[in-house]
């Protein structure tokens, strides 16, 4: 059923999410084609993280449809684990498992979910760690690494299963400016290699460089979206202008 070559990889239509009385997402529409890098921007509480969590099925939507690789994944009968095994997610607070070494963090899902042999999983993890400059950290436990290293390790962990879609939830928000660079360089490389990504970010210059589409979220709605050169320089909505004035350095 998955016809990922033609048609969008991910399609979100009229998605709504509420926590009790509070509407967190309303009428959210989004199309992600293969090789797209979609940046979600907006102030804290605008629904960026919730949207990512809905895409990953960590949260159930209250209305609307999410399609991934041509299949509706917002259906209650869908096998969540199968969906998640095709998506990678990286969290703001890294969420590495502290009781496992970096290498074990990276080989857990390939070995236990995807049934990859130990030696194959370790070979792939080591290759990726090497590529991300973490080769000599493989045997350490996560808490012994710097924040930037931990977040890079978390990215490797997400990539080890070769996901078709990568979700990144403000992955640089907990890092100091020096470390932000090393993580973003990697995401930029991934984008250039054609990794399809949806990411929530506060890094506007990064969004301008890497994104194919930027979506501005305000109070749970995608207020406007478009290519970064248009949206970040000449937004249609007053709200977007207001937000950008606050976050963009004066040109």
């Amino acid at each position, binding site marked *: 059923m998955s016809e990922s070559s033609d048609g969008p990889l991910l399609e979100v239509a*009229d998605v709504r999410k509420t926590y009790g009385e509070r509407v967190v997402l309303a009428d959210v*529409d989004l199309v992600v084609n293969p090789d797209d890098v979609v940046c979600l921007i907006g102030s804290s509480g605008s629904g960026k993280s919730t949207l990512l969590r809905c895409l990953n099925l960590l949260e159930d939507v209250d209305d609307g449809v999410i399609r991934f690789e041509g299949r509706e994944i917002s259906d209650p009968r869908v096998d969540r684990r199968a969906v998640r095994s095709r998506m990678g997610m990286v969290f703001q607070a890294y969420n590495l498992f502290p009781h496992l070494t970096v290498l074990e963090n990276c080989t857990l899902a390939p070995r236990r979910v995807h049934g990859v042999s130990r030696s194959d999983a370790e070979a792939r993890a080591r290759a990726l760690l090497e590529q991300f400059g973490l080769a000599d950290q493989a045997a350490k436990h996560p808490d012994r690494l710097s924040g930037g290293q931990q977040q890079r390790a978390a990215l490797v962990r997400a990539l080890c299963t070769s996901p078709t879609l990568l979700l990144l939830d403000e992955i640089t928000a907990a890092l100091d400016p020096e470390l932000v660079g090393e993580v973003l360089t990697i995401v930029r490389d991934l984008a250039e290699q054609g990794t399809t990504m949806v990411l929530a970010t506060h890094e506007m210059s990064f969004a301008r460089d890497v994104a194919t589409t930027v979506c501005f979220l305000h109070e749970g*709605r995608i207020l406007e979206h478009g290519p970064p050169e248009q949206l970040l320089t000449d937004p249609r909505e007053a709200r977007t202008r207001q937000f950008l004035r606050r976050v963009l350095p004066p040109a």
Partner: protein
Amino acid sequence: MTQPPQAATAWEPSTRELERREIRRRLRLRSTLTATVAVVVVFVGVGVLVVTSPGWPRVHETFFNGHHARASLPGIWSAFWLNVKMFMVAEPLILVLALAIAIARGARSPWLVPVRLVAVVYTDLVRGIPTILLVLLFGFGMPSLQLQGVPNSPIFWATAALVVSYSAYVAEVFRSGIESIHPSQIASAEALGLGRGQTMRYVVVPQAVRRVVPPLLNDFVSLQKDTALASTIGVFEAVFVAQDYGNYNFNYTPYVVVALFFVALTIPLARFTDWLGRRYSERERAGAR
């Protein structure tokens, strides 16, 4: 594709959402049915196995006799109050003493090293002695000392033995809770200028206690049952009464009756602590997943 900011119109679920709710309802119904069938099959199976066993009529007569249950009930009921009183008195003392021991073990001041040593020796020693031996030692040994101003009743010494024994176990439970609190919590408390004692009192211990409620309950339930050990030094509590009745009437039904009394006491307590734990986690980690 992008909507203009719409006026807050009343939201109506789409047909797809209604369909999905229907599917969810069906899935829930199916899992409820599966659960019901599984429960019935397992329990009926076990029941049939027991009732059809060759010795069942004999067991039924000696352990589940209605007449003997009724006859022994008043005696057990009044004796059971003694068990309840014993653990009601012992439990608060155990909690206080155990927490004090746990905190003493974590003391870092050089002046408190003797206290720390006492705490370590106390837990090591007391936990190594079977509770029944402590009850016997206290019940028969202490009155022989003929101390002035101390009661000589076996109930008093049985309770004291339970307090001593359990406070050593519970102290270790508290200590594991205290040690499970992440060092960053202590760092941030000390960064605010709190002293070591204040850090313990306001930051570490409250979090530690919440974390160890389930094992604390475990020990509490265990304590309730160990009040029966008082019978070894002649306290006429519920188990002793049941034993007494059984010996005179050649029927063990009173044991089952006593067991039911203990069970009736522990189940509501377990549900209560579950509820308490859920309430804490809902309040403190809402949305954190």
